[in-house]
């Protein structure tokens, strides 16, 4: 099947098996290996990308479903060396350790602060519940996202 999509602002066209996972097409066909595979069953959130602005597990989406969709992966967040507020806050707060969950967290958090105002810590924890991290214990991740949200105009502190 011929798939046309926008990935991080650039048009892509490829011919592939439509039931392949979007995760694999991004990593293998598009060379975008920032998106990670953790569990392969929609539990861990490491493979989170945005489809038309919405966070989804790319391991659960057959690529046939993103024909004519707009995708954003972790590679599309920063502007060259210029990090997003979420990325910078994750670095400054130590909200990353081994790093495999970090792309998924950065992408999910970006969608949350774009879509929702007044993100307090409890709400951030609920909205990031689908992104598992085995290193940080989450506290620094939550603090980082709260700071980034506050910068964007939502109250973030508790």
């Amino acid at each position, binding site marked *: 099947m011929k798939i046309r999509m926008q990935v991080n602002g650039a048009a892509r066209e490829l011919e592939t098996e439509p039931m392949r996972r979007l995760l694999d097409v991004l990593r293998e066909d598009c060379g975008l290996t920032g998106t990670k595979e953790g569990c392969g069953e929609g539990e861990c959130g490491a493979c989170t990308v945005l489809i038309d602005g919405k966070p989804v*597990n790319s*391991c*659960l989406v057959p690529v046939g479903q993103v024909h004519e969709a707009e995708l954003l992966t972790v590679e599309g967040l920063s502007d060259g060396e210029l990090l997003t507020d979420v990325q910078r806050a994750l670095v400054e707060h130590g909200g990353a350790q081994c790093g495999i969950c970090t792309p998924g967290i950065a992408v999910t958090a970006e969608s949350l602060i774009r879509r929702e105002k007044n993100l307090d810590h409890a709400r951030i924890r609920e909205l990031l*519940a689908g992104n598992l991290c085995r290193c940080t214990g989450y506290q620094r991740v939550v603090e980082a996202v709260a700071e980034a949200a506050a910068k964007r105009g939502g109250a973030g502190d508790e």
Partner: protein
Amino acid sequence: MSEFLSPRTLAEALKLRSAHPDFTVLSGGTDLMVRATERDYPVGTIDVFSLKEMRGVCESDAALSIGASTPYADLLRSDVVLTMLPNLHAAIREIGAVQIQERGTIGGNIGTSSPVGDTLPCLLALDAEVELRSQNNTRRVAYSDFCTGYRKTQLGADELITAIHIPRPAKGTRLFWRKIGTRRAQAISKVMGAASFRIEEGVVSHARIALGAVADRPRRVEAAEQRIQGEKPSERLATEVAAIVRSDVKPIDDVRSTASYRLDVAVNIVRRFVLELV
């Protein structure tokens, strides 16, 4: 390469369904795609996730109708779902996390009809009806009849699940939901309970009690419903209803929990529902 059909209209989707009864019907993929790399691709797929005619919420005096391809995230943002069906709203809020809620659909939950489908006990407690359409026919089936066994349903090979219709709860109705899992988000449920009780002049005039993850399919506990109907809620009644649940429900051991734990939890969930009425 497998065939992937993306109909633009419901009429087209029904035509394709009739022409390809062996194709898999795909909605949000949150169940079908789990560990997809461990299986062969399906012969063909009919994608109904983006069908506009199967999306959205429609309120009438009698009922709330939900398009089968409506993602959970849309239902969570719906004020009418929150106010009319707070137990369904609460159940959906505990499904997966945002990534699953953006893709998972109520029609998918119904089509799969897993014993652990999180909306299904609510649909039983709310007397929901599933709308099934084929090219030549539209029919409605009570969800309690629709699911006929372990992941088995009445869906015909030429039919699509197009909507779910939930009668507006009568005045004086109290709705309940409780899910027990390892954690609130993501975890697949160990036991879920949903209930609907109508109270008129201090007496329960209508009762529905439904449980998930305790049988091969989501199920009502009719014997407990009958015991409570016509009674005034009391602590004694709660204990009696709990005893009925204990003798009527036969859960199993599996990777997520044990039969004895599930039974204790199911009994306690129902007892607390009734105690809430006292």
